[in-house]
């Protein structure tokens, strides 16, 4: 606001830059939204219409893209013939289950870590966060061997446990930041009024509730979008949406219409959830290092 008093003269150079940046933003928007648009539109196209494309260099032929009669048959196919409602339920249970476990256990641990100091705390902390950063494929090799020996491969509990390997450390790390901002005096006051220690802990939960809610959603998002764990650990009995979508790609016959529809089914709920927790997104995706 204060910058108003410094007059910035319009030179050809700055005008050119402004013009250029406008064009850049517009181009970037097209580039970033186009694949999403193609996915949505193609999911309503009949197979032959989806393959229609102008000749090379025929720029006026772009209109072909919008030349189609919308059909819902791919969606019908997914839910009637292909059992996608079950895969969706699997996704929901696996993602939701691990998110709830992670946030409940994580908030207890984060609260404790934020309230006390002890020797080796930073080492414990580093261990917690390093489990979150480990490459998924590397974690999966021993996890698969263990789960196979106790018959957890191909079951929803196994998948929930697998997702907890990355959601729990994430929840602890992020929620600690929230509890650090709640002064101890509040619990003290509660305890003066006769609350037990645990009641005092429960009493400060509403103060961190918005953040906790947002991070349940983020945990769901990470788990829902996972492919590798679901493909290996959940293979067979606990097929989730991303795996089912991938399986529509068959060497001989790629069902593009169904793939695009499955993509929409997988993506749309997460896009909406992402908008809901927009305010916490940057904090969450940068592990709390950057706040907007």
């Amino acid at each position: 606001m204060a910058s108003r008093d410094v007059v910035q003269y319009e030179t050809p150079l700055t005008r050119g830059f402004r013009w250029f940046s406008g064009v850049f933003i517009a181009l970037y928007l097209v580039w970033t939204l186009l694949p999403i648009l193609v996915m949505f539109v193609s999911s309503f196209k009949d197979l032959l219409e989806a393959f229609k494309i102008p000749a090379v260099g025929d720029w006026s032929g772009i209109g072909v893209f919008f030349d189609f009669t919308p059909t819902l048959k791919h969606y019908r196919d997914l839910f009637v013939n292909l059992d996608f409602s079950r895969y969706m339920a699997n996704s929901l249970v696996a993602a939701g289950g691990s998110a709830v476990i992670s946030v409940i256990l994580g908030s207890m641990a984060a609260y404790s870590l934020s309230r006390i100091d002890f020797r080796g705390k930073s080492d414990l902390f580093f261990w917690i966060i390093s489990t979150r950063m480990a490459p998924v494929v590397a974690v999966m090799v021993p996890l698969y061997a263990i789960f196979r020996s106790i018959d957890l491969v191909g079951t929803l509990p196994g998948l929930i446990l697998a997702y907890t390997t990355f959601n729990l450390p994430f929840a602890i790390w992020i929620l600690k930041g929230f509890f650090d901002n709640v002064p101890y005096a509040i619990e003290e006051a509660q305890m003066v009024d006769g609350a037990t220690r645990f009641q005092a802990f429960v009493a400060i939960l509403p103060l961190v509730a918005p953040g906790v809610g947002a991070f349940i959603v983020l945990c769901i998002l990470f788990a829902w979008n996972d492919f590798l764990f679901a493909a290996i650990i959940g293979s067979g009995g606990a097929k989730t949406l991303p795996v089912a979508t991938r399986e529509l790609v068959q060497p001989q016959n790629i069902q593009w219409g169904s793939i695009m529809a499955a993509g929409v089914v997988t993506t749309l709920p997460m896009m909406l959830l992402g908008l809901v927790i927009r305010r916490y997104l940057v904090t969450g995706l940068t592990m709390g290092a950057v706040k907007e």
Partner: protein
Amino acid sequence: MTDITLSPENSLRHGESLFRVRQLQDNVEARPAPSRIAEPTRLNPLPSKAYFFWLMAPAIILLACISIYPFFWMIYMSLHEVDIGSATWNNFENFTKLFTDTRYLKGWALLFQYSLMCLALQIGIGVFLAVVLNGARFEKVLVTALLMPMMMAPIVAGLVWYFLYNGTFGWYHWLFQSLGLLDAKSILASPNTAMLGIVLVDVWQWTPLITLITLAGLKRVPQDQLEANMVDGASPLRNFFSVTLPNLYPVLLIAVMLRFMDNFRFIDSALVLTGGGPGNATKILPIYLFEVSFKFFKLGRGAAIALTLLVVTIILGMILVKVFDRQQTRKT
């Protein structure tokens, strides 16, 4: 507004209050540090540590079961020839073989090449986008539109791009050909361009994150400093390089480390786009590891590769946490 801040009596008052704060702080420092024993008024001292350890225990135990226990399993497996239901000691063969395994060594080189290409493009485009978006007319709406790719499951993103790249009906393939950038072969089909093909998908999906981080950093660049420079006649370009950019370094460093590690963590989209091919042109190490472990089921060998990948990631993680800590102390 400007009148108020520039008037002399106000600046005087400002100075005074500053002085008072200084004094207060001095007083605090002068007091002896309070010790808990000497404070009888506290009715409810901090609960004992044991209580907090109990509260922490479920999470820590669960995490140990799904991270430390598998870690020792991984070490055990890496030292054995693992078959279904049996494991035989094989004298570090899993590790010694790695040194002569050209696909393993090439996997590392490709992984770094892939990560560096992704980062260079993401930082370049992301930072520039943030700078031009900062304070633009529809900033909020535009940023929301940018978020969309990040919410998409990487596997779905890979599939959609696979469709767009397709050599007969892909729209991007048509675009590349129409611009004269490609011949009839799809971008993924030629060993020279396949890497660029998978890099572009990562750039598409994660550049917005760099932009968001940079935007958050830009809001904290001291405006008065920029103005002072401008009054002194500095050009906007000069201002950007000598004030804005140095202020962005810390957040950018975090962004770089996060993306670098995510490139190690996720291979979903690359897996559907090329699966490591054509030939081995895009067989970055995690994809090679995936093949060894879950296609050929050589779990012992896979564990050895996984261990080396994990060690490098942990070293990167240590650096990242150091950077985090420095950020935290700077803020307070």
